[in-house]
Each structure stands twice: as structure tokens, then as C-alpha cells.
């Protein structure tokens, strides 16, 4: 039992020391740049000043963080549901696939920041335009990954299902959808980070709350410590949501995650660094 536990801790340390060390190195370089005066303090605030501000202005930041997180999660969930439904429709109907693909691609290549003002004109300064931009950002990777997942099912497995006589619904529920889950999760992970961007872009365009608003305000006031603090909090929101999905994936797909150990750590390292 005891050796088990020490082994586990050794494993955790082994997996986390590299990203932690890299993070520490980045902080150290940041610190050195500001302490030596290589860059003026009003351009790049020191880490100490930035984190001090994070603590001092916590309640102010917390309210705005909550707004951005709410918009992000709502946009992500809507994109997830719509994306999966869209993918299922496209996989089961060639007509829908050929009809929807060009529009889907068109919607994806339009710069979201360019159409965001339109949503503000239509829907005002509330949370709706931000959610819509987040949905638009997150929708595409969900559709593409789910379509890939649903199509990657073994043809022999589908033939076998046909001889079992379960019908299309049972075949989807028991074979096709579970087989697509690893792909779906890969898409969801990309989507959630894009949803954060979408929400912030929405806030840039027209808003009086949220982290995007905080950054714009700080920008206007040349308040670089607050700018940095806002950036850090936005990143943390993205990383946290990503890690939640990663955890959900591990719980739901132990059969898949178990064979992929190393890849997860590299993803985590990318997420935190």
C-alpha cells in the first residue's frame, strides 16, 4: 500500500516537474527583464506587481471573470450540442452533408471579429452577442471532429450490426456514437479554448463587463499591470475548462485514455505553459 502511494506520487512529480519548471523559468525571465530595467515598467509590469494587483483587485476581477466564464460555457455547450446534431445529420444524409458543408466552411472562414459588431447592432450590449461569437468559434471543430469520429467506425462492425438486426438507432447508440467519442472529445477540447476567445472578442466589440472589457479599460488607461492581470485570468479560465474536459474524457473513456498516457501529459504541459 505504502509503496503504491509513493509510486503514485513519484509518477505525479515525474509528470508535472517539466511544465512547472518551464513556468518558473518564464516567470524568472519576466522578473529579470523588469528588474534590470531592460523594458520600462509602464510597458511591462513586474510579476510581483501584476500578482499583487490580482490579489488587491480580486473582487473586481472575480465579477468580470464570472461574466466571461458564463458566456464561454454557454457558448461552448450550445456549440457542442448543435455541432454534434449537425455532424450526425451530415453523416446520415449525404444531401445534408453536401448542402451544409459550403455554408459551414463559409461561416468558419468569416473573421469573427469582423462580424461581432453586427451582433452588437442586432442584440445590444448584453451577453447574447458574446455567446453567439463563442458559439461560432467553437462550432466548427466540434462538427469536423464528430463527423470524422462517426465515419471512422469499422465497416465490418457495421456489417456485423446489420446481421444482428438492432436497427439504426441501436447501432448508433451502442456502436457508432461511443466509437466517435475520442474524436468528439478532441474537438471539444479545441472548441472550449476557442469559446473563450469568442467570448472575449464579443466583449471587445461592445460591452461594459467581462474580462475583455477589463482589458479594454486597462488599455485605455495605460494600466499595464491590469492588462497583464486580465490576460492571466483569461488564460486560467481557458486552461481550467480544458482540464475539466480532459478529466471528463478520462472518466468517460478509460479504455482509450489508458493507452494514451504520455500524450495527455504533453497536452497538459502545452495548456499550462
Amino acid at each position, binding site marked *: 500500500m505504502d509503496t503504491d502511494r509513493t509510486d503514485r506520487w513519484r509518477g505525479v512529480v515525474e509528470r508535472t516537474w517539466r511544465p512547472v519548471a518551464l513556468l518558473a523559468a518564464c516567470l524568472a525571465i519576466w522578473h529579470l527583464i523588469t528588474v534590470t530595467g531592460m523594458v520600462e515598467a509602464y510597458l511591462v509590469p513586474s510579476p510581483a506587481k501584476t500578482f499583487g494587483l490580482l490579489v488587491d483587485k480580486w473582487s473586481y476581477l472575480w465579477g468580470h471573470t464570472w461574466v466571461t466564464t458564463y458566456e464561454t460555457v454557454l457558448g461552448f455547450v450550445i456549440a457542442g450540442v448543435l455541432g454534434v446534431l449537425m455532424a450526425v445529420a451530415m453523416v446520415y444524409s449525404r444531401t445534408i452533408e453536401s448542402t451544409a458543408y459550403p455554408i459551414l466552411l463559409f461561416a468558419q472562414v468569416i473573421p469573427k471579429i469582423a462580424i461581432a459588431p453586427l451582433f452588437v447592432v442586432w442584440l445590444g450590449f448584453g451577453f447574447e452577442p458574446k455567446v453567439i461569437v463563442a458559439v461560432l468559434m467553437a462550432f466548427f471543430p466540434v462538427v469536423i471532429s464528430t463527423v470524422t469520429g462517426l465515419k471512422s467506425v469499422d465497416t465490418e*462492425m457495421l456489417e456485423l450490426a446489420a*446481421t*444482428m438486426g438492432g436497427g439504426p438507432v441501436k447501432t448508433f447508440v451502442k456502436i457508432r456514437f461511443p466509437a466517435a467519442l475520442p474524436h468528439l472529445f478532441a474537438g471539444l477540447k479545441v472548441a472550449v479554448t476557442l469559446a473563450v476567445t469568442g467570448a472575449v472578442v464579443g466583449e471587445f466589440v461592445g460591452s461594459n463587463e467581462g474580462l475583455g472589457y477589463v482589458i479594454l479599460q486597462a488599455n485605455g488607461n495605460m494600466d499595464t499591470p491590469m492588462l497583464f492581470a486580465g490576460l492571466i485570468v483569461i488564460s486560467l479560465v481557458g486552461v481550467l475548462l480544458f482540464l475539466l474536459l480532459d478529466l471528463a474524457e478520462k472518466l468517460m*473513456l478509460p479504455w482509450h485514455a489508458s493507452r494514451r498516457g504520455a500524450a495527455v501529459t504533453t497536452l497538459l504541459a502545452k495548456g499550462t505553459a
Partner: protein
Amino acid sequence: MSTTLGTTSAVAIDDVSVRFQSKRTEVTAIQQVSIDVAPGEFVSIVGPSGCGKSTLLKLVSGLLKPSSGTVTLLGEQVRGPRHDIGFVFQRAALLEWRSARRNILLQAEMRGMNSAEAGRRAGELIEMTGLSGFENALPHELSGGMQQRVALCRALLHQPRVLLMDEPFGALDALTREQMNVELHRVWRETGTTVLLVTHSIAESVYLANRVIVLTRRPAVVKEVIEVDLPAERDYSATMARPEFASATAHIRDLLGAVTGQD
């Protein structure tokens, strides 16, 4: 509908041709093939690679429609995917998120079988195929032979009267393959299922079957049907050593050599 054939045969392939349409040309895969399989019989089908052996099994299961001719399974003409068969492919085709036992039970879930009955039956099959102790293992934790045993159990769960096997042991090493042959022989004797086996192995085709059907290369026609003159109870090594076995395998090898050396 050919009821006269249907009442006596488990599987009746009657004057069947299959043509595939490729870009500009039409390829004939199978030409006017007729095969009759009696209930409880074990029939092996051998032939050169790509001659359409697998296509025959797809015709019997209804996954593919013949261009002409009729296929009758258990007295009823095949018009679409049939549910009264068991199918084993070369690859085990297991769901990687399900344990061995739950992969076997997929058959029951898809069919809406009584779960208590299916569970009992799965237990019997697991024991019969030597999977005991591996019920809860995931496919990637099982060897190739074990995976194929799971696929066999899944194909037998609903007690099909006809079992179709498409090179089921083709991906296994020689030793595992022999073990699987011995087990399949025993399972066949115990269940009395009609088996149609497509294989590349001449030894396997003779050891297991009552009859071996030799097909020619594309377009496949039946070259010869060999009655296997071996006792019903077949010990592996003893069977291999019998002169009847040697002459049958030599004859099939000659046929295939002649068949493949045609042009």
C-alpha cells in the same frame, strides 16, 4: 422461390453471379456458382486470393445482393441482411470499450434477447472456448487468439443455425491457429451448427470440413468439390498423419496451383 432446395439445404446458392461496376468496365467476381450446404454440415471454401470467397459469404448473409441467381438460407430466399446467422470476420471487430463478456452480449442487446438467458448462454460459451478468467478484460488486453474467441462466442450467442466465417484465423500465428482449429472443431461438434468457412489454409480447410469447395481465380467458378473422407472425431496430430488427409491436401494444392497458374 426454390422451395425444393430450401427444405433440404441450410444454404443453397443457386446459379449466382456477381458483377461489380467499376469506372468504365464491369468486373465479374463470381460466375454462375451453385453450392448446396446440408444442415449441420461443415463446408470449407478455398481459392486464390481475391477470387470472391468473401463475396460468397456476404451473399449468404444478405449484406450483398447477387447480380443474378438466388441464395436461399434456411428455406427462405435472401433479400436483405439476415439475422438468423452468426458472422466471424478475419479481424475480431470488437468494441474496444467493452469487456470480452460485454462484447459477446452485444449480440443479445442488439437483438433484444432476454438478458438472463443471454448471460447464462454467454457463460457457457466463455467456458466452452476457454475464455474463463478473461471475461472482464478489454480487447486490447487480449491476444489475437483470445479476441477471435470472443468474436466466435458473439457469433454463437443467439444459437444461429448457420455460422459464416471469413478467414477467421488468418491473422493468427501458426500455433494459435492450430489450437483454434481444434476448438472450432469441438464447438461445431457440440453445437451442430452449419458452418461455411472461407480460408487460405488448405490444412485447415480439410481438417475442419465435410466438404471442401475449390474456386478458380476471378471470375470465380467452382473448380471441384472434395468430399473429406475422415472420421467425425478428429484428433489434430492423428488426423494430420492420416493418408486420406495427405492425399486430400495434396489434391487441393494441385488444384489451386493449376488454378493460379492458368495464365
